[in-house]
Structure formats: structure tokens, C-alpha cells
């Protein structure tokens, strides 16, 4: 089965506020707040670490949740954010996009 790699879009705004991550898409102005688990996945979305490793290494130890349950939740989370262009998803590692200002 192919690995899933996730990376944060560059077209978003984000800020942590009192333990919650606020995220807004610059593309369609969709506004999200992420809970603690989603925030951990979000912060680990570096384009290089496969989603299953993020779940087993970051989510499961921190939140004491079974890997299969956590992975299903993570997939749903990734699917939803990717639909809004907030997370980029690929079966290959995603290179970091450099701005050239």
C-alpha cells in the first residue's frame, strides 16, 4: 500500500490560540479551528513524514489512542483539509515550496 505524505499549503494563515490552532484558507476563506490531535497532525505535516508514522509516533503516544482508530480519524481529517486546499496530499514526499520574494 502506498504511503500518504501531507504538507501544509502555503496559501493558509494559521495561529495557535489558547491550545487551539486557527487555520484559514487564503483560497476560499474557509476558517477552521483544530483540536489538539488535529493540531499535532497539522504541525507534523512536513511533506516528508508519512501519515502513518505521524499517527504512530506523534498521535498515539501523546493521546493514548489505538493506531487503527487514530489512523482512520487522521485520514478523515486529511481528506477534509485537502478538499479545501489547506493540506497537500501525495503518495510521494512533497518538496517544500520556497517563496522568492
Amino acid at each position: 500500500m502506498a504511503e500518504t505524505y501531507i504538507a501544509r499549503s502555503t496559501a493558509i494563515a494559521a495561529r495557535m490560540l489558547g491550545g487551539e490552532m486557527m487555520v484559514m484558507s487564503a483560497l476560499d476563506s474557509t476558517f477552521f479551528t483544530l483540536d489538539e490531535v488535529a493540531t499535532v497532525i497539522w504541525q507534523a505535516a512536513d511533506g516528508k513524514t508519512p501519515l502513518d508514522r505521524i499517527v504512530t509516533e506523534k498521535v498515539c503516544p501523546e493521546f493514548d489512542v489505538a493506531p487503527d482508530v487514530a489512523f482512520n480519524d487522521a485520514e478523515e481529517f486529511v481528506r477534509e483539509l485537502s478538499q479545501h486546499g489547506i493540506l497537500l496530499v501525495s503518495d510521494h514526499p512533497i518538496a517544500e515550496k520556497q517563496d522568492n520574494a
Partner: protein
Amino acid sequence: MNLIEQMNDKALALGVPLSAHFDVTYRCNERCVHCYLDHDDHGEMTTDEIKSVLDQLADAGTFFLSLSGGEVFMRRDFLEIVAHARRLLFNLKVKTNAVMIREPEAQKLRALGVEQIQISIYSHRPEVHDAITKLPGSLKRTLQAIRFLKAQGLKVSVANVLMTENLSDHKGVQALAREMGVQYQIDPTVTPKMDGDHSILNLRIPGTILPEVFHDETLVGNVEEFCAPPQAPGEDVMDGLPCSAGHTALYISPYGDVYPCVQFPLSCGNVRQQRLIDIWKSSPEFHQVRSIRGRDLHTCSGCGHVGSCTRCPGLAFMEGDMRGPSTADCEKSFYRTGIPSANMKKNGWTVPPSHAQAQPILVQIHPLRVESPAPKELATL
């Protein structure tokens, strides 16, 4: 309560400046007849200083950032500043006259993930717009820039300041905005110059025009609701805050001065002398602003309009008392509902003083309505 309001409440409880308005320069390539700024450079912050302020804002928790001026593109480093702000993941709005924006700048703004560009247009007629900006060809260049920005898929809004010079043109600007597929907001703001010169207040629209504006459903939405008589204020109003200035919002000038709001010239400190977070948390001026509740307002706490008035504490401050009335807002409340304010009754005015020409006053009307849906929201994931 929507998600953004929830986040705002949370920021208020945590003492976080969720929104910041940062003027990166007062220099400008236009010389608008109504502008309150001194366009000479009296020592604006360097690129590194501005980047440091942006770092401090991000650390303080600021999410919504407006970069404005002056004309922001008068700074050759402006796109570098934008890039830095976006690296810090601000939700970024840029206010500009757009005259210096061509395709490369539009492409860059799009690539950097700017949320929205707000552009001032005063008339759909070049002879009127250019006479206000005092820059020949400015309307043509601004409209070209809007097309470049739209072609990049950027969200653009047109701010239409209403004054005597363009009083009959707001319908034309509105139609132009619709044709170009951009948001429109009416923003009749004329305030005294920074040096205290009140002469530009002669440009204010006569109060008698306000009923026409307030009864235009294309500007205010539901007219019946907008112009409804005020309801008796409850305890929530008396315990409530006048506005977000100094509570979850702040303003920073190109010289590093920190204020509660761009229209609230109460200096709270300077980032060249103190860390931003120390000014935000410890400035006696910020504490003074934050101490004010609805029940503390002289005159206004006993006014029937207190729960629905757009009273601006900054304008009240410029009239001499941040706890007092803002006559310009009394005027709006009166012409919106036909009911005199407590301030009018106290002074024996049958109509607000701008109409009676009793004294020069400020006319400041916040944007009434933006012709676009609010940001879409999804439940917490």
C-alpha cells in the same frame, strides 16, 4: 456565535491582540484631498525593524494583519515585508491605491498567499477620481491593477470614501465594482489631519445625506432592521466593551508608535523603546482604555442608542473624552433612526451640529456592508 467570534472572545479572555493594523509608511504617490496623513518621512522603521515587529506580533498571537499606509508600495522592500509576514502565517490584508501594481506585483501577491487587497476608488469618473487623488491617470492605473489582481485570483475589495467631492458617484463605483467582480464597501471617513488641521472636515458629507445612504438596501442590507429604533439596553450592554480597540486589536505607525486603533491617537508606547508585548500588557494607556465599560460612558450610558450606536471611542477621544460621546456617531444614530441622542438633547440640538454647522465635527462611518459572504466556517476538527 460563529467561529471567528468565538476566537475573538477567546483572544479577549486571554489578552491576545488578535488583529493588528500596521502602517508601514506614510509616504504616498497620491495627494488625496481628504487624507489626514503627513506624507514626509520622519524616520520610518527599517526593513529589519518591521520584520522584528512582525515577529513580535506573531509571538503575541496576532492572526489578522492589515498592512497599510500611506501607499505601501512606496517602500521598495514592501514585497519582502509581505513575504516575511506570510512566512509567519498571518492572515494578511493589504490596503493600497494599487497604482504601482502591475502583473509581476500581482503575481507575487498571489504567490505569497495574501488574503485580500483593499483598494480605494473615489469615483467611476476619471475626472473626479483623479481630482481627488491629484494624480493624473490614477483611476485608469488603479483599474488596470484590479484586473491584474483579479486575473491572479486574488480577492479584491473596493473602499469608496464618500465626501462632498464624490457624493453622487457611489452608485457608479458600486456598479463598477460589480462589473469587475470585486467586493464594495462604502467608507465615508474624513478625520482631521494628524497635525490638528481641521480644514479637510469641510469635505465631510452633509448629515442630511445620511438618511439616503442608510435607507439604501444595496448598502445596508435590511433597511427596516438597520434603521429600527433602538431597544432598551440590557446589562450586557452596560457591562460591554465599546469596541475591540486595545482589547483584541492594536495599531502600529511607521515610526513604531503603538495605539489602540488607527483612529484612536492615544500613544501607548513605541516598539523602538519597548517590546510590543510589554506595551500591550503593561501600558497604562491600554489599561485605561480596557477599563471602560458601557456604564462608564458619560452621557452615552443614559442614551437610548447606547446598545446599537457605532460610537467610536477614538473619535470620542479626539473630541476630548474617550468616555464621552462621538458626535459623528450621534449624527449617524439620529439620521439612521430619526431619534435624537442623549448628547443632542443635552446640548439642545434638534439636529446634529454638522447639519446645523455649529462646529466642525468628524464624520466617520464604518463600512456599512461588504457585498460578499462572511468567511466560510467549518466545525472544529
